[in-house]
């Protein structure tokens, strides 16, 4: 089936099998590999991207469902001149990542969170990231990163 998806402002048109997941489409068809796959049950959130401005798990959306929609991935977050997005900067400054595999999904979930709740408490941040697993950081510095980004 032919679909047309705008990823980070660039429209891609091409054929996909209906069973192609959005995350596979982004990684294999569009060639943006920053979005990672960490599970097969929609549990870990590593594949989180923005669909029309809201965080979704791209392993639980079919590429054909994204036909005609706007997708933002981790590659689309920093400014064109390379300046990190405030959330990326906050993760760096607060050591909110170690191996970095969950990080793109975590950052995309966190930016979506702040859009919906610009002044979250620590509890709000923790519960807002309930759908994203990290095995390295124990979440402490991830939470600090998001709280720091909220003040920027």
């Amino acid at each position, binding site marked *: 089936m032919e679909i047309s998806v705008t990823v980070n402002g660039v429209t891609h048109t091409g054929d996909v099998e209906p069973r192609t997941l959005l995350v596979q489409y982004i990684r294999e068809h569009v060639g943006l590999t920053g979005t990672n796959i960490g599970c097969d049950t929609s549990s870990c959130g590593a594949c989180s991207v923005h669909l029309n401005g809201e965080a979704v798990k791209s392993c639980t959306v079919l590429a054909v469902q994204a036909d005609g929609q706007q997708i933002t991935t981790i590659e689309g977050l920093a400014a064109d001149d390379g300046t990190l997005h405030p959330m990326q900067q906050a993760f760096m400054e607060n050591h909110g990542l170690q191996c970095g595999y969950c990080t793109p999904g975590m950052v995309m979930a966190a930016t979506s969170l702040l859009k919906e709740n610009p002044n979250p408490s620590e509890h709000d941040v923790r519960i807002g990231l309930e759908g994203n697993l990290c095995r390295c950081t*124990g979440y402490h510095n991830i939470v600090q990163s998001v709280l720091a980004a909220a003040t920027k």
Partner: protein
Amino acid sequence: MTMTDQPRTVLGTRLLRKEDPALLTGEAKFTGDIAVPGALHLAVLRSPYANATINSVDVSAALAHPGVRAAYSGADLVDLWAAPMPCAWPVTDDMKSPTHYPIAVSKAAYAGDGVACVIAETAAIAKDAIELIRVDYTRHEAVIGLEDALSDRVVVHDEIGTNRSYTWDLKIEEHEGDIDAAFAAAAHTTKERFVHQRLIPSAMEPRSVLAMPQPFGGDMTVYSATQIPHILKIFVAVVLGIPEQQLRVIAPSVGGGFGSKLDVYAEEFLCTALARKHGVPVRWTEERSEASMATIQGRAQIQDIELAADEAGRLTAIRVRLLADMGAYLQLVTPGVPLLGAFLYAGVYELPKAYDFSCTGVFTSMTPTDAYRGAGRPEATYAIERSMDSLAAQMGIDPLELRRRNFIPTASYPYEAFSGLTYDSGDHDAAATMASEMIDYAGLRARQAEQNVEGATKRLGIGVSTYFEMCGLAPSRVLASLNYGAGGWEAATVRVLPTNKVQVVTGTSPHGQGHETSWSMIAAEKLGVDPSDVDVLHSDTALAPYGLDTYGSRSLPVGGVAIANACDGVIEKARQIAAHQLEASADDLEFSDGVFRVAGSPDKEMPLAAVAWEAFTAHNLPDGMEPNLEHHTHYDPPNFSWPFGTHMCAVEVDTETGEIEVLKYVAIDDCGVQVNPLIVEGQVHGGVIQGLAQVLYEGAVYDGDGNLRTSTLAEYLVPAAPDVPPITTGHTVTPSPTNQLGVKGVGEAGTIGAAPAVMNAIVDALSGLGVHDITMPASPHTVWNAIQQAQGGSQ
């Protein structure tokens, strides 16, 4: 020369990580991200049965499926293997180890054991095709319980005729009979059984392999999501019979390991063998529900531990019996994992030479076990720290007070332990005091007395644990005495390039630890350059040919020290060059801030940058000196390193539901000199939550037929942010006297300290209800059951 008593400008600062921008923007490449046109995709058909004879495998329908290049049974592939898959740690001379091929030939020994495979044009086609393979099995009873396994009622591997792989003993006493006498004379004894459930390591990046034949001559490059590219290279050469010089192994960005990628796996051999056979790149990426079965699991042991103590509660003897679950096969270091704890069952306490340890490893019909963060040491620490609480309860004294009575005195360091090992340094009172002040131990105890009254449904508990990490694996000769198959050294090369930029080549292989940052800091401190002028080359056997990789908190105390030593070598060479050019005696040159100065002649100086250029042009070097400023070294540590600390935890238990809330967690860790406190804290945070998760959330559950019932992250409960508490960290700094940096390592400390602290707090909360112990994980249901049982089912 040691660095611990010099002023430092880079070491100890909270330098932001060099690794982060690539990881934060999606530019970093993990193995599965590497695009290779024309690569074929491997899929492995896995046995649904835990114990079954493979009668026949019919791959014809898979072969006929469009897009499939080849399909193989285990028997089809057996000629590709020059040797079976390795176990590198034969812990005893008579250890039994079944033959283990990448695809099983005649028998599936656990649910998830590979029985056939396909290579196809896409991952989807490969996955569709393996569903078309028909395997005829004869099923047999599975062996799940460890004591059942030991009985040999059902034998997992007929070829070895028993489920007992080995028994390893360590009995230490001055005179025969001392231990029995100590128990007979003891004022207090405890006898406990603790069970460490199977844990699924769950690194967020599943495993992934890409084997790429190189043009001409049979060279092969293997990319793998591994912690151990150097060790993997050796074993790919051995198992496939490929000349080692034709192999290059690269671990690109690797998304966590925690021991699960400290292994060599079937799919690494399969991809390489099939890439070689078909002359095309072959790749494979694990799915999570596949990872749960096909990647090693951790812990899985039953501990029986007895303490003997005198009137004051001072330990006089310890007896330990372990029954350790090997799973269906021995992976890389499976049998040695429980033995890594053998020396830590006395914790940070003084113990006379009265120690009796024995471990038996048994085969079961489950996924093989192997190293998981801490590997043997969290288990040992849990046993002694839980037992200390039992002893304190029995004596009716505060558990912290009991620990203080037993701490090895600070003045005794370096301390020769009962085991003959020398603990290099420690100050346990200081760590315990800091922890109790930060958590307000006295205040919590007072609050607890008020809160835990008759009928209270929210009960407060306070848990303490103190620990040694024992890392920096390890002096090679000590490893030899343990039958370990390799050494414990690490390699480093430091080059000062002509323009005074620095390359550090390391044999460590990071997967989240931030080595690029920390190693840059060490070189920058030593050489007087900016950390941003240092590049760290790693995890590629062509760039870093020597190395023993990253595990066991060894990277800094071995690999980091090797870099510091290599820097010293560079400085020494540079000193000779500078002396030659300044027409001074090398002995009169002082080096600081990147400049050689002649003592007493402040106008005579030569910066390292100038020396580097002179070394490069080689126009005017001392007679006989080789050009360029480079030093290569191998460092074999003289001792383990001994990080230590005290963790404390306060919990509230809802006795109506069994739910546990962690109110506060304080971790005081002493890892010696800190290269980068930001990274140290991150390691502690992550480690603590992994230890806490063992107590509260995680556990692989198998049914009686050997089916894994927790094969996805929906069922295997890796906690998320709202499920865990913030961590309050604090540090004491007791430099290691055995290396020039004074460092000790910190990767596993959090995990080692956390589990007993959390469980001690839970049991402490419920001790007034008669609860003495709770099996892990302490799920609400388990806690509620324990309360019901303690109350005689009457609540």
